[in-house]
């Protein structure tokens, strides 16, 4: 028997879970979802069924105090899931570049450090890419499993959000790789809180009771650098150029803005400097020689003693911020971030090697308006990272070749120019789709 209070809570929980289940079923009937998003939604549906069954049949049989505890925990678990379900429902395959997302999931899930990870895509209202921290939802999913006694395993989901305005374009969505870097950092607990005292022992005298705050800030900045390095190591200059493009939209890459740190992010000048190191180490220099490369080098050359602290209402904090910036930029701390990336991405393939193998054929295909999955009768489709970078270089340097064969497009008219650039992106997405099909077949 349920008490009046528990009965009331059970009814509320029942209504919440039924409604969520209905929402998922309706969306799934009308749309199709990327592979792992679909699995996440199916997981939620199964968990909803089991939850409803538990509330209806098994909860009343429990002891009084256990009844209330269980129903409260169930509600808490579903509250957490609630915040994840809607952004996932919004990201049906039409609104995301499905082949890129599919490839990214395989790329990340194939790394030894996070093997078997399933990347779920969300569509978010912000004009920004972000990683939805998954630790809470994983705890919630496990909690629900234990309470309802489900037999299934909780899959290793990661959640990446992309702005709905970017929808299914290719180049800007390369920024998802940065968020994948954050996912890896969270998944392997790269910057644990217990490391803060060790990290900041040299700052103790300057920061005293603020030492913990200083340590957390340094860790946040380090994670940003780590995520950049992961992205560049996995997808090469396509990521760096996409970041530059985004920043150009946000603040036109102005000299002041790129030198300024924020509470959450190191200065873009520092971020690009570290990315350039990786690009050079991976041998991109000879291939990536574009106007953007020159601009990147200029940004990377900005002296670190000109970096600016975040805007702070308290002027006395300026010195502290500058001290933190100086501390982060110390070679040993920067090296630590690089070493972590090297350690956890030890099994990655250098995207430059893939690119070199098929750069000529990709360029030739795009020059003739052909999807870059074509390599004659050889049946070897270029690797997606090669396709993406080849297309980025083509867009930056060789579009004139394409304009020549499409006389109906006037390159001086913005609308027509944009339509052909979009077409180029679509050819590349198709190329990635063809590669995924070939890979499946070979498996």
């Amino acid at each position, binding site marked *: 028997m349920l008490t009046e209070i528990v009965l009331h809570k059970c009814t509320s929980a029942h209504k919440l879970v039924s409604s969520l289940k209905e929402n998922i079923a309706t969306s799934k009937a009308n*749309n*199709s979802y*990327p*592979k792992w998003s679909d699995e996440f939604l199916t997981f939620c549906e199964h968990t909803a069924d089991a939850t409803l069954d538990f509330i209806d049949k098994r909860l009343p049989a429990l002891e009084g105090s256990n009844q209330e505890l269980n129903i409260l925990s169930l509600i808490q678990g579903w509250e957490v899931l609630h915040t994840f379900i809607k952004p996932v429902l919004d990201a*049906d*395959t*039409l609104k995301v570049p*499905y082949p890129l997302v599919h490839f990214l999931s395989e790329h990340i899930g194939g790394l030894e450090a996070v093997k078997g990870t399933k990347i779920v895509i969300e569509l978010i209202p912000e004009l920004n890419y972000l990683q939805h921290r998954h630790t809470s939802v994983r705890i919630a999913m496990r909690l629900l499993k234990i309470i309802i006694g489900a037999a299934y395993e909780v899959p290793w989901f990661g959640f990446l959000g992309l702005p709905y305005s970017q929808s299914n374009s290719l180049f800007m969505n390369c920024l998802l790789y940065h968020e994948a870097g954050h996912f890896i950092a969270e998944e392997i607990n790269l910057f644990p809180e217990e490391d803060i005292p060790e990290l900041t022992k040299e700052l103790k005298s300057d920061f005293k009771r603020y030492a913990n705050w200083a340590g957390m800030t340094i860790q946040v900045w380090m994670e940003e650098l780590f995520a950049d390095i992961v992205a560049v190591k996995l997808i090469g200059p396509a990521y760096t150029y996409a970041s530059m493009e985004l920043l150009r939209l946000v603040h036109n890459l102005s000299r002041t803005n790129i030198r300024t740190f924020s509470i959450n992010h190191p200065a873009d000048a520092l971020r690009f400097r570290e990315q350039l190191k990786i690009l050079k180490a991976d041998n991109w220099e000879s291939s990536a020689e574009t106007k953007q490369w020159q601009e990147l080098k200029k940004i990377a050359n900005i002296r670190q003693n000109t970096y600016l602290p975040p805007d702070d209402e308290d002027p006395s904090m300026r010195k502290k911020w500058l001290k933190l910036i100086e501390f982060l930029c110390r070679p040993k701390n920067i090296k630590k971030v690089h070493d972590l990336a090297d350690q956890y991405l030890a099994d990655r393939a250098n995207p430059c090697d893939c690119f070199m193998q098929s750069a000529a054929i990709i360029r*030739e*295909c795009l*020059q*003739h*308006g*052909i*999807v870059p*999955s*074509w390599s*004659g*009768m050889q*049946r070897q*489709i270029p690797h997606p990272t090669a396709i993406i970078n080849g297309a980025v270089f083509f867009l930056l340097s060789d579009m004139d070749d394409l304009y020549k*064969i*499409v*006389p*109906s*497009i006037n390159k001086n008219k913005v609308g027509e120019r944009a339509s*052909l650039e979009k*077409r180029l992106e*679509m*050819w590349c*997405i*198709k190329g990635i*789709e*063809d590669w995924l*099909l*070939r890979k*499946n077949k070979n498996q």
Partner: protein
Amino acid sequence: MAIKKKQKPVKTKPNYSGVLTKDDIIKRLEKPVKELRSLVITPLPDGFDRDSIDLRLGSHFFVPRSYRSHCFIPGLTSPHHLYQEQYIPMGSFLVLPAHNTVLGGTLEYIKLPSDVSGEVLNKSSWARTFITIETAPWIHPLFRGCLTLEIANVSNAPVILYPGVKIAQLILLSTTCDTSKKKKDEIEGTYIGPVRPEPAQLQYTEKALDPLGISKDEVTYPGDEYLNHEDFQTHVADMLRAKGYTIKKP
């Protein structure tokens, strides 16, 4: 007496219009992309018939949706109002109800040589299930893109469509038409290298009828009677008065 010079017969190139065989197709596929007479089919099918290439169904669809207006006016109504785009990943399926249509596309992206035209035809087995796939089957030389298929289920039962299945066949015909004399590669036509089905891009009726001497004022559209705002207000007011309402003048 003037002797008439015997006129030399003009040598014309023989017209070799004919269907390309498997060997012809492979030779064309082996040519480098930059050659005008090269053929591209990507992803490459596993094999070829003696005189045709099987094409598979792609993942993008335009599914018709109920339309809020009373009719579709070519060139005036956005074709996006007619369809809802759907992406069906490989392994999943689309249900095509009886007596319904859907725009699909081929999985293969094609570039035809400068001296070859193409024709897309139904696969005989699909035809026997009363699925038709193409109503505008001709492909011009140098076309490139995934082919849009106007799929119709004219049977009495819903049919399941799986992306990736062989649904059409492409016949290639060599031609001696003008395009074979082209010296450079060019993408022409309304649809530039599509990788998914694309909705109709029709001309405004006024523009389309202009070459026939039909002036802009002579072209009428449904609903024209309501376009004059004052007339429409009077019309509505008269209708309401007829039904017993009292309409005050503003």
